[in-house]
């Protein structure tokens, strides 16, 4: 009887468990096994397969998390941290960024155009962001954008709008690299928003350290889990109280740069409410494995397994009633909306000259309504996505209720954003399907919107 399950075809290779094999099926399955072994040896692939790079394959390779630097405890436990004030409400309808925001967007746009876009293809293939890109991101201060000045940052007020504009501008270069470069700052922003004085004094100095002296740490906001119909507000990862802290158990997925991260913010269910925990990467019980996905590959996505991970009583970030967690989820979705808008803009920027240059039947294909109307709809839905995102960002920055606004923006960015990715490939025809053009990457990246929770936050 024990042999039977392994002879069944289902439950593996994307085959449903209801499938059965007939005699021909068994024969073909046997041949397939043989052919695979033969092929590997014949073309010398065996060696390559065994040497598979950690970041590209997920052949069971897993490792300990990175040994983190020592985050020396500082500050006063239990004392509320510094908070950036909400932005001033004018009561007017306005779509104009402030001068400071525009300056910043210009800088980030240049970075996205000059540095990020040229590196995007290779980073996607390697499942890794190149060090130069990460370093440049530190130089322009991405990790500290969301921190108030008192905490070593640059923000004079609540940064949701600024963060949204920056994420959009970065993703116009590349979404995967945008996630890779924004991930550490997302954790810093979270600590700025909800950390106690002790948590802020302990962790934030590293993020604002002089780039030339010391590399700011990689850090990751781990909310996603490998569950079908996953509801981020009911994580399967659990936290149980111990004498002097908490014990965390569970699996987190889509964790950006998890192998490099020195600090995680992990979502777990504590007494029925979702709660954020700060977990240093050197904590025993953490394992990380590569979890490359359809897209967002430059962010080196990983799966983080927590087994009896002990966190101190000072490890809770924010409240334990679920309110901090819910706000975190909303701000993270807002960031993903901004990434979708930036990527959608990249698609529009790319297909516009393509369809006006590419000729078929003796004239540019843009002269045909079936092509032109796709571009028109792309532009229309993109602008609607942008305005929905800005509205949610503006409300968040002003300290207003923004859950509904984010939900509406996310719904649009997931659905219409994916349509933009789809049409981007379609408009280039066969050329859209090959890696010579970036549209196939944007297609893969845009599927992440509405799927991945956490990872980034504004």
């Amino acid at each position, binding site marked *: 009887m024990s042999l039977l399950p392994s002879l069944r075809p289902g439950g593996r290779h994307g085959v449903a468990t209801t499938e059965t094999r007939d005699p021909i099926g068994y024969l073909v399955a046997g041949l397939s096994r043989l052919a695979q072994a033969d092929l590997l040896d014949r073309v010398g692939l065996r060696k390559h397969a065994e040497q598979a790079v950690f970041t590209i394959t997920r052949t069971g390779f897993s490792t300990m998390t990175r040994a983190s630097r020592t985050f020396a405890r500082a500050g006063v436990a239990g004392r509320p941290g510094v908070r950036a004030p909400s932005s001033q409400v*004018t009561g007017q309808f306005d779509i104009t*960024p402030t001068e400071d925001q525009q300056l910043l967007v210009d800088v980030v746009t240049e970075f996205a155009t000059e540095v990020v876009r040229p590196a995007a293809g290779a980073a996607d293939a390697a499942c890794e962001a190149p060090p130069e890109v990460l370093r440049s991101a530190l130089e322009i201060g991405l990790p500290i954008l969301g921190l108030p000045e008192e905490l070593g940052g640059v923000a004079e007020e609540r940064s949701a709008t600024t963060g949204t504009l920056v994420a959009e501008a970065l993703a116009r270069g590349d979404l995967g690299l945008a996630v890779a470069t924004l991930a550490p700052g997302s954790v810093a922003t979270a600590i700025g928003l909800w950390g106690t004085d002790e948590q802020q004094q302990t962790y934030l100095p590293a993020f604002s350290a002089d780039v030339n002296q010391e590399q700011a740490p990689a850090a990751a906001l781990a909310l996603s889990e490998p569950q079908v119909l996953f509801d981020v507000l009911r994580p399967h990862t659990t936290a149980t109280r111990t004498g002097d802290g908490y014990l965390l158990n569970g699996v987190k997925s889509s964790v950006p740069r998890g192998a490099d991260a020195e600090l995680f913010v992990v979502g777990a269910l504590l007494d029925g409410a979702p709660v954020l925990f700060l977990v240093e990467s050197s904590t025993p019980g953490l394992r990380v494995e590569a979890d490359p996905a359809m897209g967002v590959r430059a962010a080196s996505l990983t799966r983080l397994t927590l087994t009896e991970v002990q966190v101190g009583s000072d490890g809770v970030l924010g409240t334990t009633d679920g309110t901090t967690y819910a706000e975190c989820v909303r701000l993270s979705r807002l960031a993903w909306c901004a990434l979708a808008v930036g990527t959608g803009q990249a698609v529009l920027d790319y297909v516009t000259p393509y369809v006006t240059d590419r000729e078929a039947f003796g004239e540019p294909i843009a002269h045909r309504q079936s092509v032109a109307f796709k571009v028109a709809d792309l532009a229309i839905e993109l602008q609607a996505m942008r305005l929905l995102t800005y509205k949610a960002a503006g409300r968040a920055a002003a300290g207003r209720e923004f*859950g509904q606004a984010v939900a509406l923006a996310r719904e649009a960015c997931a659905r219409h954003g994916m349509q933009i990715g789809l049409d981007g490939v379609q408009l280039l025809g066969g050329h859209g399907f090959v890696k010579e053009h970036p549209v196939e990457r944007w297609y893969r990246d845009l599927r992440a919107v509405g799927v991945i929770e956490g990872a980034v936050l504004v």
Partner: protein
Amino acid sequence: MTIELDDPKRFRTLVGQAHQVAMNMLRPISRKYDLAEHAYPQELDMLAAMIDGLADSGASEGAGAAGVRREEGADGGDNDRGNKNGANLASVMSIQEMCWGDVGLLLSMPRQGLGNSAIASVADDVQLARFDGVWAAMAITEPGVGSDSANITTTAVLDGDHYVINGEKIFVTSGDRADHVVVWATLDKELGRAAIKSFVVAKGTPGMRVERLEHKLGIRASDTATIIFEDCRVPKENLLGSPDVDSGSAGGQGFAGAMATFDNTRPLVAAMAVGCAAAALDLTRELLAGAGVEVDYDRPGQTQSAAAAKLLQLESDLEGARLLMLQAAWLADNRRPNSLEASMAKAKAGRVGSDVTLSCVELCGAVGYSEAELLEKWARDSKILDIFEGTQQIQQLIVARRVLGLSSAQLR
């Protein structure tokens, strides 16, 4: 300067008033005039008088058909550092509320016709004074000419102090009830769009007659007339803008100027579609809540019921359309070009209006389909909003040409 896309605070009172009027005056007679097609909704006379009063007192913030005029140096009120929230925003927001009440009745509002918008957009100051207080319908479409309005065949020939107009116009909204009609006619068919002018024709002018009224899918409270012009003599001062046929003349005068009216009225039609869809969505949300379905905004659609997921999708699309509408009006208030954004708003609002109202009928089943509720009516009313003032496809053409940098000869 800051990014803030909430409804402007200064229009809260105006919008609140419009909502109360829509709820307490339009909704109670909404079904009545849907069933009694072509009956004149006399209840609107009192409402129109009230709106005139509001306009005179300045409490309307310049909203209404005349609000599309772009005057130099107009003050947007208590605006900070150059950002203006003015008459265009006030107009789209109040029209949205009125159409949440009833689209057909809003279209029948005395002195708020599309012809009034055309006069406000194109007329010179003398004409503006002469036509103050009129109720003007707009007559463009002909039996053989729809979206291609440069091809109109109605002619206007100068004869002494009058133009003599000949032709047939169809689909004239309020063509029977309005006291004036703005007619598009060509001075010389050979000269193409440069020779197309608009003329204000007073009702009762000899040679002009309302031939018939249409029976329609929706907006039945609004009359849609066919008007025949047979040697209709119109004083030559009634030609809006300049009589020059010089195709190189400045914008705001010739065909381009007349077409520019649409840049101003398209956000208004978007507002109608948004208002009608919002009515359907508001009622559906409540009906579904009664059936135990409520949207949880923090949870993704696929983890909720199909009805809740659909509701979330509709709400998102409607809010997107609404923000595009506000953007187009905001640009106009700030004297920035908005032709692209106006078409984006109308395209999105037009299709979303249909999707939302039709989906609401589907979600509510027989309750939605029955005349016992207004959902089926809104699903009929919304269709015209994706057609008049430029169909969905015309909006897509305009957007595509602008985005792709193509001329109308290249992308036809």
